[in-house]
């Protein structure tokens, strides 16, 4: 069997298990290519019926405008149901405190809004686009990952997961994070996007952008990032390999304006995808720590 068919089969199988085992599932939509791929898979899994669960986007308020626009079009086109949870609300309600300084980001604050959204709507299964090849703590994830009342991940005590059997039984208040594209690599996702002709926000392809350099990474110039006086804004042709919000994703210099050239660049790349994630650079175990407190 072709490997993309095999990966698609597995992802669709997992989606259907979620829809069957839980009464309140939700798809966590970040606006990035992985969650766009998830939406595509969900549409395929339940066709000709509509996707039987809503999407939830945790909006930091610091998104690339292109991804928000794209999100709204996608929702419109497929008749999806979207909930948006605003980090700004959590800040206004004093649930979290805005970070300060030059590395200030709302990325870590997202977790609180995510957990609030889950609680408010009573979601008991959250489908996420995390992939095991992204990061060393994610390499340890199960397909169904149980989180306690506080959304915490207990890495040292995960349920065994045998063959393709997914045990989604949980207590009230707990929830499961389900990862249908666990076994996909970055390149697999791109090859699948190409094969299926999946549309993506324009930030994934080469474009002119105002940027500045910091710590060897290319940062997008925006009002949300506190620049030093000596950080000079220049114009470059760039694209994004991974898209979180503007404060935590760095650009790469690139001329790849179409999918074939993007795939060519990824094959040749010496640096990993997460090498451009500012949020992972905070410490060696940054991802593991965020996951322990409820990040996905």
């Amino acid at each position: 069997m072709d490997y993309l068919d095999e990966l698609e089969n597995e992802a669709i199988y997992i989606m259907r298990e979620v829809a069957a085992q839980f009464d309140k599932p939700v798809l966590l939509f970040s606006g990035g290519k992985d969650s766009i791929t998830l939406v595509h898979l969900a549409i395929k899994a339940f066709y000709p019926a509509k996707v039987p669960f809503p999407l939830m986007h945790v909006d930091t308020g610091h998104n690339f405008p292109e991804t928000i626009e794209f999100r709204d079009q996608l929702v419109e086109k497929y008749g999806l149901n979207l909930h948006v949870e605003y980090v700004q609300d959590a800040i206004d309600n004093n649930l979290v405190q805005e970070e300060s300084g030059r590395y200030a980001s709302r990325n870590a604050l997202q977790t609180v809004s995510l957990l609030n959204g889950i609680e408010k709507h009573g979601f008991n299964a959250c489908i996420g686009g995390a992939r095991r090849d992204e990061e060393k703590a994610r390499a340890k994830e199960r397909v169904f990952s149980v989180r306690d009342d506080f959304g915490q991940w207990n890495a040292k005590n995960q349920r065994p997961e045998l063959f393709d059997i997914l045990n989604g039984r949980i207590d009230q208040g707990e929830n499961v994070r389900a990862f249908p594209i666990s076994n996909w690599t970055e390149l697999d996702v791109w090859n699948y996007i190409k094969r299926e002709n999946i549309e993506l926000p324009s930030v994934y392809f080469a474009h002119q952008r105002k940027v500045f350099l910091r710590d060897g990474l290319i940062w997008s110039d925006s009002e949300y990032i506190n620049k030093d006086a000596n950080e000079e804004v220049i114009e470059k042709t760039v694209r994004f390999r991974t898209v979180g919000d503007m404060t935590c994703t760095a650009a790469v210099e690139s001329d790849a304006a179409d999918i074939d050239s993007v795939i060519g660049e990824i094959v040749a790349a010496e640096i990993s995808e997460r090498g451009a994630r500012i949020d992972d650079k905070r410490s060696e175990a940054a991802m593991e720590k965020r996951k322990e407190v409820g990040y996905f």
Partner: protein
Amino acid sequence: MNILRISTAGSVDDGKSTLIGRLLYDTKSLSKDKIENIENLSKQRGLEDIDLSLITDGLTAEREQGITIDVAHIYFNTPNRKYIVADTPGHVEYTRNMITGASNASVFLILIDARNGIIEQTKRHLFIASLMEIQNIVFVINKMDLVDYEESVYLKIRGEITKLQEKFNLEDRNLTFIPVSAKVGDNVVKRSAATKWFDGPTLLDYLETVDEAKDTTGFRFNVQYVIRPQSDEFHDFRGYAGKVKSGTVKVGDTVKVLSSGQSSKVKAINRYKDKLTHAKQGDSITLELEDDIDISRGDILIPGSEVLEGVKALNSKLCWLGKDDLVPQKRYLLQYGSATVPVKIAAVKSQLDFDTLSFEPNPEAVKVNSINNIDIKSASPLYLDKYKDNPENGYFILVDEVSNATVAVGFNQ
């Protein structure tokens, strides 16, 4: 390009994680930033060479203790294949995590420390390989650098395993032996000059050519979800979404529904908007049938001509994975395919003794990581195949109703 799923096995410190790290390193599958990262960590720890196990041992606790605690899934590919590697822990305490990694593998790499040879944990893992009907088993005899690359050491271990082959019912399996040094890089990707006496394949050569195809037996289809759009365009549409667990199905085939026993013909095989003429093992599809018969999640479709008797009593091999011991007469939930059924353990007949490698009757308790021969009784019929005849419809898990934990995996006999 196809996918090959591999799992490591073997005792603590035999070098599983180092081997996988080496495989990734020598196939140039690691990005520059990841290599720099583990180089720096290795330096910080005062090591002379880079510690390749850090590639898969990613949790803080694992790095502190220098052991693997939970399975890591790692990916790499060659022009030929996409590899999904489960690097599993060797520690007895984490056998449950090892089984998690092993259950989806079609190739098993059992590591052996050349200095120690076969030890209890090697045998335990070999038994698990036997139980799971894993077709391809590679004995990776590691740390050859520490025994001066002596052929006699390799031959001795190989001889001992060959003797065990019969005991473990492994005569029909594809067994391979490769002497390596994961640390130095001998015979993993690069052929070693230090083992001129060895004329077998390197590990990568083996993986590139091993046959992963599973033989598919009778058609089994698990209904996961019933699709009823109730839209104007698809007003009367009723589709059964699920996975072909084994065999194939064509449009026009007569299929029988378990549990009801009713039959109908396949009207359409849908994969999104595509109408297929047939589907095969592993396919996630949506079936439409000619007749409106009662079908719901948990049902299994099989060929109309086949008989698969529902049983309320079954005998199986059971690996206990729960932290708490099995409680006889307690209700557990048995999950197989897309069905969940309450069951009780009727009898624990015997338990595997890892010294004698035979099943001893009347065990005192069923503890975590033990392998047992048990009888299960169920209130409603179970439609399982014998694992040996059709593994895809022959395994199940037990779930504790109170803690919700997955406490056992079973193989129907």
